[in-house]
């Protein structure tokens, strides 16, 4: 199967395999390098602007050149300003984002992994239909559904709560699809049969064999879900009406909307954006090695 074959190749590919590394004649592919540098600059420079802007107060933000940092500037006052704003609600927003993204990520991964495993390794009444439904749901525009989800939950008085943001994000059809095809390839029937012969229950097979073998796809799905939920703006925007429940993006966006008694706080918001992006970037970079994003494209091949 494709994925098993990929598994064998992956370690070699990642570490460079049989590529000519330490040879005498090292002709640099200038075109590729230049393209990559341009691409890298295009992607990084705007983000770099945040670092520079975080050093500025409102006054200098709107009066100095964009990439000229203000040193020593207002960096620390921006940091302390956003952290103490409105009795420390920024930390509350951080906590909320973690609840939504980590909590939602873990739960949706568990649900997707369980469903994927069941659909891959078992045939039962309705399993084909269930899988077709899930594949069909992949095509449904998730963001668009936020407004109907709000209307339905509002009818039952369930909006403006943690559940109203968590529950709609607990099921990801694409994640179930990924888990299913991975489980098909990675969990051998023979192993399951062996455990059965030993007297193990189906649940024991799932728990000790299945989940262990599915670990790579579970980690991938977790990270995908985490990012999707972390970046989701519209769903919390329509569901919530209490800044204490806001995730980071929503809270910071709200700080930019002026009302009569409350000005917009650009320098504080930029400080908050800085404090949002930097940890996230560090998280990505350090967890890079655990990403099995080839599983996503492997899903297509399968």
């Amino acid at each position: 199967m494709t994925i098993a074959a990929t598994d064998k190749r992956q370690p070699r590919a990642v570490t460079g395999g049989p590529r000519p590394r330490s040879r005498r004649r090292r002709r640099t592919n200038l075109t590729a390098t230049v393209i990559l540098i341009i691409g890298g600059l295009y992607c990084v420079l705007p983000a770099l602007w945040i670092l520079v802007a975080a050093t500025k107060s409102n006054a200098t933000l709107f009066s100095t050149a964009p990439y000229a940092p203000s040193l020593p500037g207002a960096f620390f006052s921006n940091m302390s300003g956003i952290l103490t704003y409105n009795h420390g609600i920024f930390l509350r927003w951080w906590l909320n984002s973690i609840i939504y993204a980590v909590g939602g990520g873990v739960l949706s991964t568990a649900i997707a992994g369980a469903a994927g495993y069941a659909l891959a390794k078992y045939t039962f009444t309705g399993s084909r239909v269930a899988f077709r439904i899930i594949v069909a749901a992949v095509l449904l525009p998730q963001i668009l559904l936020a407004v109907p989800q709000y209307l339905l939950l509002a009818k039952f008085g369930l909006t403006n709560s943690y559940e109203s943001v968590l529950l709609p994000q607990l099921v990801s059809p694409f994640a179930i699809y990924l888990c299913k095809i991975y489980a098909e390839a990675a969990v051998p029937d023979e192993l399951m049969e062996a455990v059965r012969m030993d007297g193990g229950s189906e649940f024991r097979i799932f728990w000790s064999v299945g989940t262990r073998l599915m670990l790579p796809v579970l980690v991938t799905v977790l990270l995908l879900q985490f990012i999707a939920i972390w970046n989701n703006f519209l769903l919390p925007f329509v569901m919530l009406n209490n800044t204490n429940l806001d995730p980071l993006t929503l809270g910071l966006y709200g700080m930019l909307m002026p009302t009569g008694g409350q000005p917009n706080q650009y320098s504080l918001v930029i400080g908050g954006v800085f404090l949002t992006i930097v940890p996230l970037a560090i998280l990505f970079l350090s967890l890079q090695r655990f990403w099995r994003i080839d599983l996503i494209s492997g899903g297509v091949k399968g």
Partner: protein
Amino acid sequence: MVRKARSRRGAVAAGAVTAMALAVAACSSGSSSTSASGATSASGSASGSASGGSGQVVHLTITDWDNGMPTVVNAWNASHPDIQVQLIKPTGTGYTLYNKLITDNRAGTNPDISEVEYQALPEMVANKVAISLGKYLPSLSSSYPSSITSLVQFQGATYGVPQNICPMVFFYRKDVFAKLGLKPPTTWAQYATDAATIHKANPKEYLGNFDAADPEWFAGLAQQAGANWWTTSGNNWTVAINDAATQKVANYWQGLVNSGVISPEPSWSTQWLTDMNKGSLVGWLSAQWAPNQFPTIAPSTAGDWTAAALPAWTAGNSTVGTWGGEAEIVTASSKHPQQAAEFINWMNNSQEGLNLLIKNVAVFPAATYAQSSSELKTPPPFMSDQPGYNTLMATAAKGVRDFQIWGPDASVTFSSYSDAFASALQNHTSFTAALGTVQNATVSDMKNAGFQVTG
């Protein structure tokens, strides 16, 4: 989020505290005749709450977006152990909030109290979100001028306790004016001339901007010119957003924008913030609350701005419109409307509550007795070199003219204004045509909903 549950000593003690609080509120809200009736209602409600349950603390929630509210709410909670109020800051403000209030109203999950702008109040009433306060606060209207009470009273019933009044005010850079030898314009004709002078002297400078992003700004200017976008007779509505007065205002500004002496940028954009901070914009037609905003808009220009009366259509006329202004409502979801009414009456209609609001939220009170409060003797920090700032506000407040009534779907009107005028600015088309679009959108929406509309 402060909740202090204090144990009650006894029904009598709590009843006495409540009665005293109400009596104080009633006394400070007007003449002796009203305090008599206030005391009557106080004892009436005191006995009501006393018999309502011994040892029970009533918990209320209020949605309010203003900074500085925690101090106000904490002060109430400290002195009212049996009615504890929790403050909720909403995620979205304006119509994002109001629409959620309407939708959540159907499920009954709204907070007990909400802050609502005057222009949105009829929409709240039409959607059954706000309840009538007549039986809880019978003597409310005595504290306010009729221009304010007409904003919260519909067909004889009162639906909110007014908090503040936001007359429009003209702010200008006194240093720039001095350099050019200009005096602040007292008429719109003079404003136009000054705009041209300023722009000619420095093509990078503008006297102001035409703000397509703030419908209330434009509505305030229309109010000053004598417009009434909605009028009623019996149960019938007449919509006249493109009436003669409003067209006069639109044509005036079209002239200024077309000749390039007024910037077409929307307010609050980063472009506008930079222009204000760097001195490309040297004037702002704003309202009473502007000094709260200046420190983050244009901190580099602290000390350079002066407030003056808004230019008038005829010299000496002191009519001005409003931009902003809120009342507090009790929602239909509230299980304790009596206590909720008590709280908002204290907050918006007592010297103590209003003093806290003035000090922490920088409001200018709508209640006339509070407009001479000692808290108003000092100007807002940004206008510290204009000690008479609040006196100017008091004078302006006397000349306030609002619409006779706001329509039941002002949200549609506002969003149509933003789209139509932004498009007119972007594509250099007619403002009068844009007004027509707004008129049509408003009328068709009202008709579609079932209101009786002519025009």
